[in-house]
């Protein structure tokens, strides 16, 4: 089809006299022997003639030049000339105006930013209620706060607020899913371990209840997914832990040492404890840390406990009606932390003080020391700096493998409540005959950084665990690594042996008598 068109196109160009001499000669040769081409040529010629004959030239206009000369004389006004540049001129003028305004009023932008910030802060600060109100904190929760530094964030306890401090003593808080929550009934276990009588249990409850009231205003939440934390909560935690340990030590120091290491079973005097609690209460500040789905900032907020108590009374009068509203507002309370938090610019005046680390399960916020009110807590500094090691000690588990029959495989399954997965151990019959100690560490974001060179084979986050185990038996020396070392050592020995053999061969050749040259054959 294309060659057909090319052929006819050449004919069309031929009648237009647009072919080169060679092309004309070639085409004329083809025309001599092709009737089809001759017919097409005639047809194209007729069409060309028709075209030429059909179009009349336009009549001359004698006034054309006069009109043109007049048009040339008319000068286009300047505003018409610049009309086409009007959008660019507008943009440039607006930019220049803005530059002038900002040059002489540089505080305008700051004012706008501050205004926006305060608007945002006001939005997130609306309708804040104590955590007590949403999570319905029990004494068990307060106990867990003291020992495990955890507070539930919702009534169903799906999320929890974890407080802690890193090795450098810097405080942080985490919001994480409850799959990592501590074992239940810790308070009951603690009481049982101490063998508390009814009166002592009552005393224990009263200590916890007293702190519960105070803690109510330390963590506030609202329906906009905001969690407001009073930095003084870290001091409350120390005071509560000290109070509990002191109480337990008074009951039975010996039994308390079964739970805590001996260095952390200090018994404080009543006067010391009172002083500590007063100091902590006096350090209460109106400056809260606000964690919202898209920002973190520290700002003033005055929580009026008395007003809240009145509000609670009012609510209790119309329980049924308000419960529905409560359910609507707080029934499904759950803190959402998006990636926006992790992307916060560190140079922003709000966020530069806070270091946020987020993974699929946890949102950890490191608190600068300056935010937490410093109080003088005599004899508590050791407890404060080592408080994590106490609870970490509690989280390890230890078990002994019972005696088994020789030559039989052994299997043991352990479900650790703090983990989403159980641990399954299968041991083959290789003479396993001693104790087996296992340690389970939560792999949090900080540990992940430290172990970045370690290949996990999966995306490590706080749900993952590092599992350490220690075996003390006769098979310990036959680990794969040791075998490889032995093989390398053997290889080195063989290479050394080879060298020695080569050396010996050379020496033998040197010491051997030289053979006499052969004499020519004589006839």
């Amino acid at each position, binding site marked *: 089809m294309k060659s057909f068109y090319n052929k006819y196109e050449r004919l069309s160009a031929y009648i237009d006299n*647009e072919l080169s001499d060679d092309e004309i000669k070639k085409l004329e040769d083809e025309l001599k022997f092709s009737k089809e081409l001759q017919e097409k040529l005639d*047809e194209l010629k007729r069409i060309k003639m*028709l075209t030429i004959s*059909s179009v009349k*030239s336009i009549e001359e206009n004698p006034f054309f*030049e006069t009109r043109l000369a007049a048009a040339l004389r008319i000068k286009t006004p300047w505003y018409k000339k610049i009309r086409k540049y009007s959008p660019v001129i507008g943009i440039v003028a607006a930019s220049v105006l803005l530059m002038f305004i900002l040059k002489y009023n540089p505080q305008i932008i700051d004012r706008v930013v501050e205004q926006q910030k305060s608007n945002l802060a006001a939005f997130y600060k609306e309708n804040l209620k104590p955590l007590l109100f949403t999570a319905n904190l029990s004494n068990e929760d307060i106990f867990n706060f003291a020992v495990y530094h955890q507070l539930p964030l919702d009534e169903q306890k799906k999320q929890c607020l974890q407080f802690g401090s890193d090795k450098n003593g810097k405080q942080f808080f985490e919001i994480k899913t409850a799959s990592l929550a501590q074992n239940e009934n810790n308070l009951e276990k603690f009481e049982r371990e101490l063998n508390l009588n009814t009166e002592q249990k009552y005393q224990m409850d009263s200590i916890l209840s007293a702190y519960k009231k105070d803690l109510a205003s330390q963590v506030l939440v609202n329906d906009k997914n905001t969690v407001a934390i009073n930095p003084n909560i870290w001091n409350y935690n120390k005071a509560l832990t000290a109070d509990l340990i002191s109480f337990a030590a008074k009951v039975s120091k010996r039994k308390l040492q079964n739970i805590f290491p001996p260095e952390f079973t200090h018994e404080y005097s009543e006067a010391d404890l009172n002083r500590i609690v007063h100091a902590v209460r006096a350090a209460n500040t109106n400056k809260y840390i606000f964690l919202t789905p898209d920002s973190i900032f520290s700002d003033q907020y005055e929580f009026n406990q008395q007003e809240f108590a009145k509000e609670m009374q009012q609510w209790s009068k119309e329980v049924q009606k308000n419960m529905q509203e409560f359910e609507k507002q707080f029934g499904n309370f759950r803190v959402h932390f998006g990636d926006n938090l992790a992307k916060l610019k560190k140079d922003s005046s709000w966020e530069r003080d806070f270091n946020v680390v987020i993974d699929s399960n946890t949102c950890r916020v490191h608190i600068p020391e300056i935010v937490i009110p410093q109080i003088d807590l005599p004899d508590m500094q050791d407890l404060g700096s080592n408080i994590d090691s106490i609870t970490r000690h509690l989280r390890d588990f230890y078990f002994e493998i019972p005696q088994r029959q020789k030559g039989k495989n052994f299997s043991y399954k352990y479900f650790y409540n703090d983990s989403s997965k159980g641990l399954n151990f299968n041991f083959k019959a290789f003479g396993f005959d001693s104790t087996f100690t296992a340690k389970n560490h939560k792999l949090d974001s900080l540990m992940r950084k430290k172990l970045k060179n370690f290949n996990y084979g999966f995306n490590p986050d706080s749900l993952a665990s590092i599992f350490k185990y220690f075996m003390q038996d006769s098979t310990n020396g036959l680990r794969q690594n040791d075998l490889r070392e032995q093989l390398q050592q053997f290889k080195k020995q063989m290479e050394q042996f080879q060298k020695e053999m080569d050396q010996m061969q050379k020496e033998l050749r040197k010491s051997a008598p030289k053979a006499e040259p052969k004499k020519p054959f004589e006839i």
Partner: protein
Amino acid sequence: MKNKKKNEKLPLPQILNLDDDFSLIKRFIEGDESTFSTLVQRHKEKVRNIIYLTLNNHDLVDDIAQEVFLTVYKNLGSFRFESQFTTWLYRITVNKCKDHLRKIKIRQIFSPIKDSEEELGYETAPENSDIKEIVHKAIAKLPDKLRVPLLLKDIEGLSYQEISESIQCEIGTVKSRIFRAREGLKELLKPYKQELL
């Protein structure tokens, strides 16, 4: 002596006739604006015809031709003498026609009611109309991109090279478009085959 020989070998500078386009333009650039009217006189009819053939509208010819020469007047100072003046002039003319056709198309978008009389006029040719009229209307029905090169060739007698520079496309494309225009014309004139072809 050597220099003299060298000078002899060098190409002689082009001596321009006083009345050719380039010399007129040079004089215009030097400040003699009267030469512009000579250029207008020389090329106005060609320009008007191209406009008429391209737009097929008698009423618009003078207005657009005026626009063409105003543009030439404004830009003649920057003429680079790299191509013929006529090539440059025809390119401006064709571009002005294209601008006009584009404006008409935009206007048509915003005015859905078509000029029915004009449409019908092209659709049905009267039985007794003369051959010239029939062919003229058939040419008018061709798309712009085929009609313009065909008329520039057959009516204005421009070469393929000049047409390609005027409408800014390859010579091969011009060749192909002219052939396709002729083929299209043949199809449109099929009902009058016996009388015409």
